[in-house]
């Protein structure tokens, strides 16, 4: 207790990771290509682009939007999107009177299949504490001002639901293709710390 400064130099995490993989391979408990597959999935296949496709579809197709708000897991699956940490997704629609923002105060739960790996700030003790106690101040730091008369809903995903914020469709996007709309949907807008981009930006 209180003697952390006297302990030996800790082993570097890359050494610890390699030692673990080495032992598990040696014992036949893990396959190199299976580890490679996980890295590939997160580096190349899943990420905020998945969530953006879901949001763009909801903007373009009112019936899909209805299905998304009723059962987001099933709606995402229509687009082939789902998996671990996306087993139970709830979509939260922003509107003129309501702005939603998501945090996990107890750890860093996040809808991986829709948004990929959470950014470092989402996992930081500061965001996790301040998002529930002073959310407007936090959003200001992201450049987002929520007027006092708009209800700010902060969702703490402390159990088994993962939340996806559906940002408002920006003005001036009438007639855009789903592909074009997808490019307007940022990661931050689906966490609720930002808005969707307007075509001008």
């Amino acid at each position: 207790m209180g003697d952390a400064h006297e302990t030996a130099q800790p082993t570097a995490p890359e050494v610890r990771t390699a030692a673990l993989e080495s032992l598990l391979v040696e014992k036949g408990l893990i396959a190199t290509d299976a580890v490679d597959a996980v890295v590939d999935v997160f580096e190349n296949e899943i990420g905020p682009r998945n969530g953006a496709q879901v949001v763009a579809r909801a903007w373009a197709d009112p019936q899909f939007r209805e299905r998304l708000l009723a059962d987001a897991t099933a709606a995402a699956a229509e687009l082939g999107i789902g998996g671990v940490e996306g087993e139970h997704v709830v979509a939260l629609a922003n509107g003129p009177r309501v702005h939603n923002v998501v945090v996990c105060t107890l750890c860093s739960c996040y809808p991986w299949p829709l948004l990929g790996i959470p950014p470092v700030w989402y996992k930081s003790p500061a965001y996790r504490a301040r998002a529930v106690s002073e959310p407007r101040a936090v959003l200001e730091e992201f450049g987002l001002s929520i007027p006092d008369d708009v209800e700010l809903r902060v969702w703490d995903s402390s159990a088994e639901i993962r939340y996806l914020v559906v940002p408002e469709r920006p003005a001036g996007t009438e007639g855009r293709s789903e592909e074009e709309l997808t490019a307007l949907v940022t990661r931050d807008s689906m966490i609720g710390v930002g808005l969707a981009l307007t075509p001008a930006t």
Partner: protein
Amino acid sequence: MVVEEDEPPFHAAWEGRAHGLAFASAIAVPGGSSRPWIERMGAAAYLSTSYYEHWLAALEARLVAAGVLTSEELAARQTEITAGAQVPERRDPDAAMFVRSLFQPLDIDDIDGRPPRFGLGDAVRVKRMHPQGHTRCPRYVRGARGTIALVHPAQPLPDTARSDDARVEVFYSVAFSPTELWGDDAEPGAATVLVDLWDSYLDG
């Protein structure tokens, strides 16, 4: 908030490998979810290490606790790696395929559980509590009064996941007013804090 532009999923190769190790094991990594194991690190170690160092600590602890590895084996292998030993390779295309399938839509069966005790709009109070082990009840809502905003289907209660008395419960999104949580220190402006809380955390 410090925000990194164009942040990559992994900031170093080892982070991706550590992430992969947690999913790619031919056996399920024993010991349930990693969160209770991360909490065993203690607050000082937790707060002074990074996200994937938490994962690593949990992986090591779970594999040692399950008897899959020993601490001595780990330490010896770390020494060999530091001295230049390479990580051996083993190929198993089926395992790789299986792992990829975890990141596709999954067929999840509903779990039977007791029906919800509360319905939409019901007033509830979060119990004051001080559990010794892992819990999903954040301190900042303990003792606070809220209102049921969403009712979610039953799932295994993480608090009891590793006990002989593993329970299945429904949980709720409970809406709190910021002044109920923070008193006069609440931030001005219209706001609701919604926290997902399990059935047994709540009193009517």
